[in-house]
């Protein structure tokens, strides 16, 4: 008798059980496949086009890295990264933009999260208005805000910071409000019974319970915002994206490759640091 006999005795029972569910799901599956085929048609998904594109993609990627000769590695690298000082500064500006936008958006989201939490809000009307406001701020992409803010505040990082901050406010406000709704109301009621006002309740009963979650969300949002800040410059809203867009538009392949590599490495490092801190805080809480 083979070693897997007991397992194979169980398998038919499970399979029969699954099959019953599967039959029910068949209609949904057909609907899903229909939707996918329709989407493929709408999006012009042609395998032939894809294969032809693969060649051109390889060509493009090859153009982005200049040849590095074995004997002259340092010279060739220096030639490739001829503008590294300027690019480094733009990356620092990009990080500053992400940091400031995260701080502004998080502060705003934190303030609004009390009114947007069902258990802490002052009334249903305020709750409804705050929720819709947060939804609006979250659902409009930051790049769209950026285009509008460039019109209002001019080209440069200010428009980018404000755009990312507004989007962050919406995202953080919702997540923070959900954390607020999951608290133990005991401490809040205890403080209220002891005569605390609303602010004291928030500060001493709500905040200690939600702070670990809030901090974790904030690091996560920072990772997202660093990515956003690298491309918000595509519409003129500051940071390394302005330079990257120009290099791409003007077919400066070497520069494009050099900048992309720097951006990818920076995001990589920030993600890693942020994730470590996030896990440490989650572990300490």
């Amino acid at each position: 008798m083979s070693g897997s006999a007991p397992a194979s005795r169980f398998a038919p029972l499970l399979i029969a059980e699954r099959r019953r569910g599967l039959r029910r799901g068949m209609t949904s599956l057909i609907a899903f496949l229909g939707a996918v085929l329709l989407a493929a048609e709408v999006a012009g998904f042609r395998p032939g086009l894809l294969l032809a594109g693969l060649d051109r993609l390889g060509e493009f990627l090859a153009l982005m890295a200049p040849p590095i000769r074995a004997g002259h590695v340092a010279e060739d690298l220096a030639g490739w990264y001829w503008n590294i000082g300027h690019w480094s500064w733009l990356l620092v500006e990009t990080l500053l933009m992400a940091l400031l936008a995260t701080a502004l958006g998080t502060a705003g989201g934190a303030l609004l999260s009390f009114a947007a939490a069902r258990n802490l809000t002052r009334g249903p009307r305020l709750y409804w208005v705050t929720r819709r406001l947060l939804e609006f701020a979250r659902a409009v992409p930051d790049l769209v805000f950026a285009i509008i803010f460039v019109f209002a505040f001019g080209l440069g990082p200010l428009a980018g910071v404000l755009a990312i901050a507004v989007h962050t406010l919406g995202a953080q406000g919702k997540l923070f409000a959900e954390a607020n709704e999951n608290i133990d109301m005991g401490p809040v009621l205890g403080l209220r019974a002891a005569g605390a006002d609303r602010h004291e309740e928030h500060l001493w009963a709500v905040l200690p319970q939600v702070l670990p979650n809030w901090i974790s969300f904030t690091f996560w949002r920072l990772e997202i915002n660093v990515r956003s800040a690298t491309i918000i410059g595509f519409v003129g809203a500051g940071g390394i994206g302005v330079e990257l867009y120009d290099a791409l538009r003007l077919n400066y392949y070497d520069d494009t490759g050099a900048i992309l590599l720097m951006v990818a490495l920076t995001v990589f490092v920030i993600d890693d640091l942020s994730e470590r801190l996030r896990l440490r805080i989650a572990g300490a809480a």
Partner: protein
Amino acid sequence: MSGAAEIAARQARLAALLAAGRRGRWPLRLALAALALVLLYAAVHVGLIGSQFLDGLPRLAGAAAMMLPPAGFEHLPEFLWALIETIAMGLLGTLLGALVAFPLALLCARTTLPLRLLQFGFRRVADSLRSLDHLIWAIVFVRAVGLGPLAGVLAIAVVDVGNLAKLYSEAIDNARRGPPEGVRAAGGDAAEVFRWGMLPQVLPNILSATLYMWESNTRSATILGIVGAGGIGYQLADRLRVYEWGQASLIILLILAAVYAIDFISAHLGRRLIEGRGG
């Protein structure tokens, strides 16, 4: 003991307890002070503190006023078609990404690939796909396959592979060890261990991660048109560029409606597939 004296004694004890907790905190305070300085510098540098911000506010109010009411309803068929294209891009990109991400996740998880060095390498591959924004990939793919939604689908798929491989592999690593060991003890081979011991545990997490990315990708798809990679973003950027504020706000409203619809469908599917399964 009089009431006042007892209150005073208890207050002193509370203060001592709180002070003890605060004593070890100076590195945190130093870090926060440094952060405050950096933020202040950033605020001055970008012009948030200064006339650039204040001067822009009336112009922003003007733009907002010009956006109301939404206009350009005669272009509605064109906008709706672009919106359908956007939704199709989000769906296809997510699906394509998920199909590639699943096998990659098996190589990224400690549980399914015990060779640490190799597993670490694969995880780094997934991370590097995530580290460039959709919009950058979109520009690259526009060069490869031309203007249009296909470039957008590919851009979404590439980032999706990175994100989902990470989320899937975390789900696999967080799975309980008991069920796979049970199947192994009952004589199951590697495929059976995975199919009956692992998959039932991770499938709900995998489905919810995929639905989450689908929502997120639909949002991303709305802006890829700005670089010519298909969808409603092209119309939006175009109308904003020529200061057609009314039409732009109509497009933004359509985007909001589409995003809500997808969130709603995703929440419904999540309830049906994840919570209501096997019912």
